[in-house]
């Protein structure tokens, strides 16, 4: 396992664009998080993040994992290029001739995805602990370490998304097509969600359409990833105005959401392997 990880990291690290993207994907979210957490006091304008409570434990886990996961796009590009480059340079063939098996080829890419997701999760954990310990109103251990399932969700969200990128790129071989397909698929998922929610049960009560759309769309590959960590803004708003019951929603990480994402990830990796195995290079 370490040998395969070592081989793949060597390829990535010596590639300038991959290296820049990986560094950016770490540096950017951390910088932004620290900038937003700075108290600004200019006399007439006063911004104190601790007053908003977004950095309060345990809410900070939800808030930080959600915003950090936006930066997964940087590594998604790396994940796509690590397959498309092998096709471009015809090094996939050469690696196999040199004695790497097709299984090892897929595993080496998957291990890098796991390693990146793990490091990124640890990074978000450390960042949240630091920011939280400065700004959180509550710092008792029992409160600090509640809702840690958001970190698990964050890890799975990254692994799932990158595995999806890996599979799609292996399928179409070209990075541009791969990015196009991912964008189109996500549009299709949102459109079909909207259709199920507002068109299918048009003349009936709102909850029926909502439940139907949520029930079906939770199985969509990209939607299932999105569902893992839902956007925290509405939750934040309802905390301020709890009487606004129209917005009641379960924001916690659900076990079936985790299961769906794990099944998709396993499927993407397995299909990638099958695809490569069947293909003549």
């Amino acid at each position, binding site marked *: 396992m370490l*040998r395969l990880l*070592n*081989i793949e990291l*060597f*390829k990535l690290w*010596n*590639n*300038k664009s991959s290296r820049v993207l990986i560094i950016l994907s770490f540096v950017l979210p951390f910088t932004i998080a620290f900038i937003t957490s700075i108290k600004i006091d200019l006399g007439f304008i006063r911004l104190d993040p601790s007053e908003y409570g977004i950095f309060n434990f345990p809410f900070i886990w939800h808030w930080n994992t959600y915003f950090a996961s936006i930066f997964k796009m940087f590594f998604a590009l790396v994940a796509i290029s690590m397959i498309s*480059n092998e096709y471009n*340079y*015809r*090094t996939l*063939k*050469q*690696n*196999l*001739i*040199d*004695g*790497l*098996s*097709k299984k*090892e080829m897929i595993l080496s890419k998957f291990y890098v995805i796991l390693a990146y997701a793990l490091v990124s999760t640890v990074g978000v954990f450390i960042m949240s602990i630091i920011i939280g310990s400065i700004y959180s109103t509550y710092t008792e251990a029992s409160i600090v370490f509640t809702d840690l399932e958001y970190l698990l969700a964050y890890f799975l969200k990254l692994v799932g998304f990158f595995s999806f990128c890996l599979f799609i790129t292996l399928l179409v071989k070209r990075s541009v097509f791969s990015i196009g397909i991912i964008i189109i698929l996500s549009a299709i998922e949102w459109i079909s969600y909207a259709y199920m929610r507002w068109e299918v049960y048009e003349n009936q009560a709102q909850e029926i359409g909502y439940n139907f759309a949520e029930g079906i769309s939770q199985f969509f590959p990209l939607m299932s990833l999105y569902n893992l960590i839902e956007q925290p803004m509405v939750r934040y708003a309802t905390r301020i105005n709890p009487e606004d019951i129209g917005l009641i929603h379960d924001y916690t990480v659900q076990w079936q959401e985790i299961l769906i994402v794990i099944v998709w990830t396993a499927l993407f990796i397995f299909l990638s392997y099958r695809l490569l*195995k*069947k293909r*003549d*290079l």
Partner: protein
Amino acid sequence: MEQPILTINNLTKKFGALTAVKDLSFTINKGNVYGILGPNGSGKSTTLGIVLNVVNKTNGDFHWFDGTMSTHNALKQVGAIIERPNFYPYMSAEQNLKLVCKIKGVPLYKIDEKLEIVGLLDRKYHKFKTYSLGMKQRLAIASALLNDPEILILDEPTNGLDPQGIHQIRQIIKDIAADGTTILLASHLLDEVEKVCSHVVVLRKGEKLYSGRVDEMISSHGFFELKADQQDELITLLKTHSNFSKLKIEDDLITAFLEEPMSASDFNKLMFEKGITLSHLVKRKESLEEQFLKLTDNLN
């Protein structure tokens, strides 16, 4: 006792309706230099692709060495270059070879040793994309040699190179062969195979036409090219003589193919006894090229 390195049994590969390799069997033994010869599209690269784990076979089987190892592990003891040299353009020669070392499990000190052999040591820190085609091909050979392979497989190694590049590559191949490394060389260039190889497998449209020693492939006893003033008498004599099987007459040049071995001086003596004076006498053996064309023509 000959040690088999690669054994292929009844190997078949179909691409849809096209059969690229048909029921192919042969064995590569240690210490020989083999050529796979055939026109473009005869299934050479497909055959190599199958044994090198990048093309899936349709039928038949093959195994490396004694057959106890998985293909990808066996390939760690093989060095192979197929088609164009494939490396990461953004890495230097040294970094590319480091990666191959990691894949094959070879110590890193081999890198300089092999770059020296192909004369690229002074360019080792330069990026692969700055290399000329000849240098790329030489780097590919260095890469294939990293693990001191049991067998070196080369597919059209001189394709697209300039005369100087071709000469360099052939010299490197000869040096490697002289060290006792088994070599399998696929080529459509006959003189390349003739110059370098001791054994040959001839393919045409995916089928094996011949496999064995190069000198045994040229199995005939050769032929005489003759000119004489008394041409008609010479032709009559050749037709009645049991040593000759076939005559070819082009203008005043007569080509007589031998059925039995016969030296030029014996023949000259015979002619002299019969009172025929020859103005031109050359004994030749068919080249691999003529033999090859004869083999491939027979099936048309």
